[in-house]
């Protein structure tokens, strides 16, 4: 379960930016192809936030759907898995344009 160590990173980064201020909320951007189990992330967040300035903070997660672009036909394809070959018949190469994000977008402080 890598979500635990990822959540530790999230909390540590926010604590650093907050510089002692109380954090009321954190917003993440997580792509559907980032390999993160959101339920596990939420579960870990409260545990990792305990005893820090994030304790009790709300976790908002903005999910970003996966999207690939076929290098052959230039078509945009919605992706549920990070595949590199276009599901279209030609088995053409595809690049992943969206869905691999794993960012701390913002924090709410006072």
């Amino acid at each position, binding site marked *: 379960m*890598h979500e635990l160590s990822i959540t530790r990173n999230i909390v540590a980064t926010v604590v650093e930016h907050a510089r002692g201020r109380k954090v009321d909320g954190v917003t993440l951007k997580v792509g559907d192809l980032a390999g993160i189990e959101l339920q596990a992330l939420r579960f870990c967040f409260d545990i990792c936030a305990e005893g820090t300035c994030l304790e009790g903070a709300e976790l908002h997660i903005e999910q970003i759907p996966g999207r690939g672009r076929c290098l052959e036909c230039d078509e945009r394809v919605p992706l549920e898995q990070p595949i590199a070959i276009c599901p279209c018949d030609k088995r053409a190469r595809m690049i992943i344009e969206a869905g691999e994000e794993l960012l701390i977008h913002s924090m709410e402080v006072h």
Partner: protein
Amino acid sequence: MCRTCGCSDGNMVTVGDADGDHTHILPDGTVIEHQGHSHDHGHSHDHGHSHDHGHSHDEGHSHDHGHSHEGGPSKVEILEAKVMEKNDRLAERNRGWFAGREVFALNIMSSPGSGKTTLLERTLRELDETSSVVEGDQETARDAERLRATGVPVVQVNTGTGCHLEADMVWMGLQTLRPELGSVVFIENVGNLVCPALFDLGEHKRVVLFSITEGEDKPLKYPHMFKAADLVLITKMDLLPHLDFDMEEARQAVATIAPDAQIMEVSTKSGAGMKGWYDWIRDAKRAAT
């Protein structure tokens, strides 16, 4: 629990060498070093636990993006910070460390039981390169012991509850291991097809093992692991006559996720395909260092 000194903390990472000297890294970054050498069985080693597990994390906390307008009521501050930034930064440090010593590093990954340790045992005996190993496991030094028997330096990193190696653990391992100039370092990751995929260790190449007892669709089920692979080693090929394994389907599955990855079939038991693997290591090393 640390099996060398008995320290108990489920979350810590332990790095140890053959002499029993070892180091713990706590989740907050605190480093505790223990000397394991003076075991005269009179129990004179006092590991007395006088280390304060304080908060001496003195690295990685320096970047401020300067968005903090002090004071005022609750407000939103945009960070757009990469979650993996700290690990990525430490992986860069490893990369620089490798480059400075012309060391070629391979990150070996697979599910448990795919044959990583067995592959390394044979490789360390047969590969004509100076080598050493960073061995990652959740618990025990069993794999490290097996590899040490080949006569090659091995450092064991126990990740405790962690299911993967991270860049800082590899860094700690390297400080103990001190690989020779121009040598090859094999980093045997924790057996797991999910978590290690996300953590850059600063390696030159990623090798993913995929044994034919696992099923042809493994790459489609665990795409994150396979998509970053430079080489996919299909292992346990000696079992092929006993299984209904469709090699073409397996190769297609790899190509769907990782079209640039090379695929090789090997049997550590019979030795088939091993020469190709050694040639690949030498070629990749030459290109990288």
